[in-house]
């Protein structure tokens, strides 16, 4: 989007938090000419961030089913941004499948979204030969993509370096005086954003070189919905649970059972996979699970990206830059008074 001629060069911004939101915001501001520093409390990139455990699906239309039209709108913008900013973005669409007995789930999913083609057994086999003969019905979302979140975060950090953005690791959030502060700290901002809550997610990283899936596959199930995202080199990310909890240190046995059985139901070969990693993170969400740009305690906060971090970060970064540099207002993602949205 062409920007009005704004002198961003004299603006000094401290971005706090080097998850996907902070990195995207820092890059957007730097690209517009602002003087940016990025502060991260963890000793290295994203180690303390839930971005590290993300699925990396860029699926605005699949997410619309549960997230609503705003997520689809911001996500479509984000998808285009990733294609321009990260060469590893793969545009092979998303496949949504259901077993024969779960037809109702598929119908309900289809009713609440758009931009898909209905696929039967033959089309599924053509898209993903490994799944040939295993599923007779599904939805194919050809306009969606995916990426490896860890590679994408590293690529953003590299781009920041190219633009002379200083990234300081292992430092507390203590920006210097005279700087504009943009906070992208997720759940750590709860003292300032009191209606923020944690939603725990659990994921597995499996290695199964003999299986070749080329795009994210979502398996609908009334109780245990699951997705598998190929990471290349025979690696698959299997996720992800959603638990109302802000303690995210360990996976529960039940979650692990559910994730593994669902992967096995997608393809029995997963029974032979090596478990490379078990990850847990806590997503930050507002009560309506929609993201916000909110001013609090002298800073502009970008938060509440919930389970849509990679999908939404670019669109929110663009809006945050517009707010900071041009004084614009985006009512659909901005609310100044948390009291308005209290539930009582």
């Amino acid at each position, binding site marked *: 989007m062409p920007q009005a001629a704004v002198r961003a060069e004299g603006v000094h911004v401290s971005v706090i938090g080097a998850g996907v939101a902070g990195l995207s915001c820092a890059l957007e501001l730097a690209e517009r000419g602002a003087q940016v520093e990025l502060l991260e409390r963890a000793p290295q990139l994203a180690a303390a961030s839930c971005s590290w455990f993300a699925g990396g699906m860029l699926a605005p239309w699949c997410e619309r089913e549960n997230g609503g039209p705003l997520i689809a709108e911001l996500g479509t913008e984000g998808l285009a941004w990733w294609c321009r900013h990260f060469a590893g973005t793969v545009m092979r669409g998303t496949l949504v499948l259901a077993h024969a007995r779960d037809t109702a789930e598929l119908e309900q999913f289809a009713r609440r979204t758009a931009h898909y083609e209905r696929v039967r057994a033959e089309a599924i086999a053509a898209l993903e030969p490994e799944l040939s003969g295993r599923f007779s019905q599904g939805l194919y979302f050809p306009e969606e993509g995916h990426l490896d979140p860890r590679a994408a975060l590293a690529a953003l950090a590299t781009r920041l370096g190219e633009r002379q953005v200083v990234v300081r690791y292992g430092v507390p959030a203590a920006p210097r005086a005279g700087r504009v502060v943009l906070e992208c700290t997720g759940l750590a901002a709860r003292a300032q954003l009191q209606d923020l809550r944690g939603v725990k997610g659990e994921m597995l990283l499996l290695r199964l070189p003999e299986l070749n899936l080329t795009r994210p596959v979502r398996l609908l199930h009334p109780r245990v919905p699951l997705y598998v995202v190929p990471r290349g080199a025979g690696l698959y990310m299997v996720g992800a649970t959603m638990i109302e909890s*802000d*303690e995210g240190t360990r996976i529960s046995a039940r979650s692990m059972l559910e994730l593994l059985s669902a992967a096995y139901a997608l393809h029995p070969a997963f029974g032979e996979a090596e478990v490379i990693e078990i990850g847990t993170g806590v997503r930050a969400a507002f009560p*309506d699970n929609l993201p916000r740009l909110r001013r609090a305690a002298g800073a502009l906060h970008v938060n509440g990206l919930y389970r849509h971090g990679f999908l939404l970060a670019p669109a929110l970064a663009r809006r945050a830059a517009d707010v900071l540099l041009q004084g614009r207002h985006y009512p659909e993602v901005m609310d100044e008074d948390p009291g308005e949205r209290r539930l009582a």
Partner: protein
Amino acid sequence: MLRLYQTTVHSRLMLGSARYPSPQVLADAVKAARAEIVTVSLRRESAGERAGQAFWSLIRELGVRVLPNTAGCHSVKEAVTTAHMAREVFGTTWIKLEVIGEDDTLQPDVFGLVDAARTLCAEGFEVFPYTTEDLVVAERLLAAGCGLLMPWGAPIGSGRGLNNLFGLKALRAHFPEVPLIIDAGLGVPSHAAQALELGFDAVLLNTAIAQAGDPVRMAAAFAQAIEAGLAARQAGPIEPRDLAVPSTPVIGTAFRG
């Protein structure tokens, strides 16, 4: 007015709190349903000091009574332990008791249910047992100390409505004084209206509202259906007949041929 143990409520619609698009939608749905009782599933791992507090405080702020449940428990011991934890976390002796016996249908293990109910009633819990329409099981649950029953309409989340009308009517007829709450399996408001028309005292819903395209609107629709069903019950429905009964008297009409 409906009396559940020592508590009197006005609303005949109770809501589950799972699977909503967001806590905000849940809150709006509870308001639209004018529900006074909301069930909350206590997942064990969320029972720590801080974990899950944000979600529970959102529920508390709704000003409703929390009915903790033992959803997902498969054994008596598990259900009893979960009930103990729920009493600590929520500060209530109410417990919706679920002991699941079969994974595909999530149908109650009625033997375990009676065992667990006996234990919990003896410990002073006020038990809301999720059961089938089986009369003998109902008898045992009441003997164990339960002051009300929650028979299923159909398997949890199936949206099929009242599957066994004969059995449910028999249950209502056998226990005219016991509060009976249809729990699980309803899909659309007409199912709820039917439950109230049959004389059931209330319904408990989750999936039918939480997974609807617009949960808040669906909650309001269920509230209206329940109001209609209750009014119809109190108004005294006619009995179905095999023969047509003309609503306009025909004797004396001219030109009958």
